């Protein structure tokens, strides 16, 4: 399984190096990867449906309990098949949709990176590795939304999406760490038995709230939903794949995965039902006011995600079965609708529902796909959408004393979604063909075949629900910790209230479709409420934060090096001084000091003279040179106190420092009085205070008893373990070699920084 995940990453890395060479010529071959993975995962269907759970374990950071554990059970199998299956169709579709695009290789790179990350997410058993993959999906989504990087709007949408899902990711990390510290493990499989313990833990509410934070942002629940319509700036294959079929379901996946661990608790259930209900109704209403096909689909996707959260919140076998089926239903019909929207946009040049009409005459196969998808979305038999809708009604209708309210809400949502599906799947194809679309041509079969395949899926699974019942739905419900044996999917349940509700839904929805026409006027009217929307509130506070941090930065990063140094020193003096003042005991034992030798005294006198000369000289070069004398004097002190390594290094460093100073100062005018008398006094006081504080600090440190365990260990083992007699060097290259490794990397980065600062000529006039 690890290899299956790594394949996508490997391919995207491969494209980094060879993409320019192939120039998108092999784009169709790229589709082989998701296809191969689909076949790979499909072969597990038999074993999974027998109740087997396939696991794989790779040790990663065992000391922290962070490992690469992968679990393939009903839940992850369904998601894996969806990711690879729809991935395959999207890869194929893209090869025609973005044919000849300058950055096609880049696009495939991001897309396969996303696929790999998403697979890793749904297969991970370890919460920390799940978090890593979660973040990777956010990042690849950021690049894909901003793929059209010359458009300001798409860059902004990408940033908003990244910010929202990124906050959710952090919330997931914190939640996972809490969960890990409560249970003592990061493995979800091991947490399964601990539900009662976790639920009685005082941190339960906090953990659940954090996990919700992650799931709601990723799955675009109210009030974090607004990034998703913005994300529709991405090319249509991306909207299909990430922002409808897979990535936005990551939140749903997380909730389902953790249902057996955290679920069955009042807080869990109530919050999910309320948030899900608000989201599904709110965004379903929004679809009425949109004229852009993608906008309609975006809001109906949010609404569908709301339904899923709503169902997971109920937590009964019925509800989770309904959720499982609805995930399949939604993936099939919504992906179809998105793909045909892409075709319409590509061939007819517009996505405006108010002008699109009669396209069936020019895009016949696409029209069939749209029609079937709309039927499934409306839940009209014999599509699988009908089964999904029946199950949903079934679960809400039997949900205790809230049944009437919940059923009412879901029926309203379904009516509105039927309208949205019809507008997106049927409306563009019916009626008379306007003159401007008469020359619309059929796209390449690579583009129209994928939606047709998906649309056929809607029908086939509807007529033969047995195909998914035992293989996907039952194992999925079982993996959420419930008994899925009683589940039986069928089209006709007999004449009962549920069927009546279905009839009402379809009838009212159809009436709505024929009476309400989407117009620009409605869209403009609803835009007035924009200023109360969560998006406006968040982007306003965003702007405020931006202004504030700008002002803050300008206050401190004012470009004067001396001010930086002064600020740092004032802070150090204030904080250290306060701490010393309140806690230190000033028990300095002067008798313990060794007597001052002649060499020490002589060196100190040299230093004092050099300091005086540095401060009062009127020549820069002389000041630098006498600074060098101070440095050398310190080196001599090191030599006296037998630290030859330190002294050697310090000697070389001081030499180079003087050279550097001279190089810079040599070119400056002879002497300029930059600071006046007052400033010099201020600086002098500051320096003296700083020196005093450091001296006091060192005296305090010396008064403390020293723990020599570490240095004794190094001294004792330097020769035994590392074959070296010079302990300092052995520590540098062996005992703490990783530190040195990082230090030299930092050095290299600093050098590159200097090089870039001095060589980079941004202005044309500076270029030589």
């Amino acid at each position, binding site marked *: 399984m690890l290899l299956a995940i790594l394949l996508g990453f490997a391919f995207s890395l491969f494209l980094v190096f060879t993409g320019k060479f192939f120039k998108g010529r092999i784009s169709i071959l790229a589709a082989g990867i998701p296809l191969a993975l689909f076949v790979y995962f499909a072969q597990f269907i038999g074993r999974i449906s027998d109740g087997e759970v396939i696991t794989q374990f790779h040790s990663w950071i065992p000391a922290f309990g962070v490992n690469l554990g992968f679990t393939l059970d009903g839940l992850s199998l369904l998601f894996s098949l969806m990711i690879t299956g729809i991935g395959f169709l999207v890869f194929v579709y893209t090869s025609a949709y973005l044919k000849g695009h300058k950055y096609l290789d880049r696009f495939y790179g991001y897309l396969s990176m996303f696929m790999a990350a998403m697979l890793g997410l749904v297969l991970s058993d370890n919460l920390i590795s799940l978090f890593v993959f979660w973040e990777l999906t956010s990042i690849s989504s950021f690049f894909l939304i901003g793929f059209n990087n010359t458009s300001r709007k798409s860059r902004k949408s990408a940033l908003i999406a990244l910010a929202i899902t990124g906050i959710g990711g952090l919330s997931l990390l914190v939640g996972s760490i809490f969960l890990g510290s409560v249970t003592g493990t990061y493995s979800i499989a091991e947490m399964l038995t601990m539900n009662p313990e976790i639920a009685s833990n005082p941190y339960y509410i906090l953990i659940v709230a954090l996990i919700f934070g992650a799931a709601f942002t990723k799955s675009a629940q109210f009030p974090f939903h607004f990034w998703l319509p913005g994300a529709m700036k991405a090319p249509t294959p991306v909207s299909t794949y990430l922002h409808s079929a897979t990535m936005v379901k990551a939140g749903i996946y997380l909730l389902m995965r953790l249902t057996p661990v955290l679920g069955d608790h009042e807080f869990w259930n109530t919050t999910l039902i309320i948030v899900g209900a608000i989201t599904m109704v709110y965004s379903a209403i929004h679809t009425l006011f949109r004229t852009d096909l993608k906008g309609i689909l975006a809001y109906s996707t949010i609404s569908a995600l709301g339904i899923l959260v709503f169902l997971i919140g109920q937590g009964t076998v019925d509800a989770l079965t309904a959720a499982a089926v609805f995930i399949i239903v939604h993936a099939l019909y919504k992906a179809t609708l998105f793909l045909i929207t892409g075709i319409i946009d590509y061939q007819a040049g517009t996505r405006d529902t108010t002008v699109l009409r009669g396209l069936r005459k020019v895009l016949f196969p696409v029209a069939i796909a749209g029609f079937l998808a709309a039927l499934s979305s409306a839940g009209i038999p014999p599509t699988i959408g009908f089964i999904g809708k029946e199950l949903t009604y079934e679960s809400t209708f039997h949900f205790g004393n809230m049944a009437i309210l919940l059923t009412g809400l879901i029926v309203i949502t379904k009516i509105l979604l039927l309208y949205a599906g019809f507008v997106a799947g049927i409306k563009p194809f019916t009626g008379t063909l306007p003159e401007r679309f008469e020359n619309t041509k059929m796209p390449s079969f690579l583009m129209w075949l994928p939606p047709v395949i998906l649309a056929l899926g809607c029908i086939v699974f509807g007529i033969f629900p047995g195909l998914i019942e035992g293989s996907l739905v039952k194992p999925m419900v079982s993996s959420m910790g419930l008994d899925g044996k009683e589940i039986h999917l069928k089209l006709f349940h007999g004449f009962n209230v549920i069927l009546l509700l279905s009839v009402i839904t379809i009838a009212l929805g159809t009436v709505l479709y024929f009476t309400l026409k989407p117009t620009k006027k409605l869209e403009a009217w609803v835009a007035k409420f924009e200023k109360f929307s969560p998006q406006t509130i968040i982007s306003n506070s965003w702007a405020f934060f931006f202004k504030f941090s700008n002002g803050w930065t300008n206050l401190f990063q004012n470009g004067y090096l001396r001010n930086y140094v002064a600020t740092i020193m004032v802070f150090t003096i204030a904080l250290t001084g306060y701490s010393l003042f309140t806690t230190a005991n000033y028990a300095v034992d002067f008798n313990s000091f060794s007597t001052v030798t002649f060499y020490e005294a002589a060196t100190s006198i040299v230093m004092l003279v050099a300091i005086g000369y540095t401060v009062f000289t009127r020549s820069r070069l002389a000041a630098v040179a006498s600074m060098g004398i101070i440095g050398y004097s310190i080196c001599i002190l090191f030599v006296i106190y037998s630290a*030859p*390594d330190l002294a*050697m*290094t310090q000697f*070389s*460093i001081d*030499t*180079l420092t003087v*050279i*550097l100073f001279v*190089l*810079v100062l*040599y*070119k400056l005018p002879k002497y300029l009085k930059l600071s006046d008398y007052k400033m010099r006094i201020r600086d002098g006081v500051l320096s003296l205070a700083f020196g005093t504080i450091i001296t006091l600090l060192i005296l305090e440190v010396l008064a403390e008893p020293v723990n020599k365990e570490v240095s004794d260990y190094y001294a004792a083992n330097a020769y035994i*373990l*590392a*074959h*070296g*007699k*010079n302990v*300092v*060097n*052995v520590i*540098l*290259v*062996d005992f703490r*070699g*990783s530190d*040195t*490794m990082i230090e*030299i*990397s930092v*050095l*290299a980065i*600093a*050098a*590159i920084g*200097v*090089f870039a600062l*001095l*060589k980079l000529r941004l202005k044309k006039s500076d270029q030589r």
Partner: protein
Amino acid sequence: MKTIILRTASTYLLPLLLMFSIFILLRGHYSPGGGFVGGLIASIAFVLHSFARGLDNTKELLKIHPGFLMPIGLALAFLAGVTPVLFFDLPFMTGLWYPDHLPVIGSLGSALFFDLGVYLVVVGVTLTIIFTITESA
């Protein structure tokens, strides 16, 4: 600063200082020294040369831009650290030692290559910074 004495001396000083820096590098494991100091001394040698004979001459002498020494050194240090992981299944940065003592160097081990990497990085960093500043000053 291009006095004839310094110019003549630098011809002899450069190889001497470089040899000294390598000497410091090699003895580091037993006596004071090591890659860090060695690298600094080598840098000083080149800086001295550039002072005496001009930056262009030093650059010509070096053939490659000193910046390229940084990735080479980093790669060498990283390889020294990662070799035990790849070939001996030991943790990262485990010291490997050639069993016999060699003349002059003493024990030969992966730490020496690591130190050599540090040496190269230090030379690269110092010279890059100083040369860049010299050029733009």
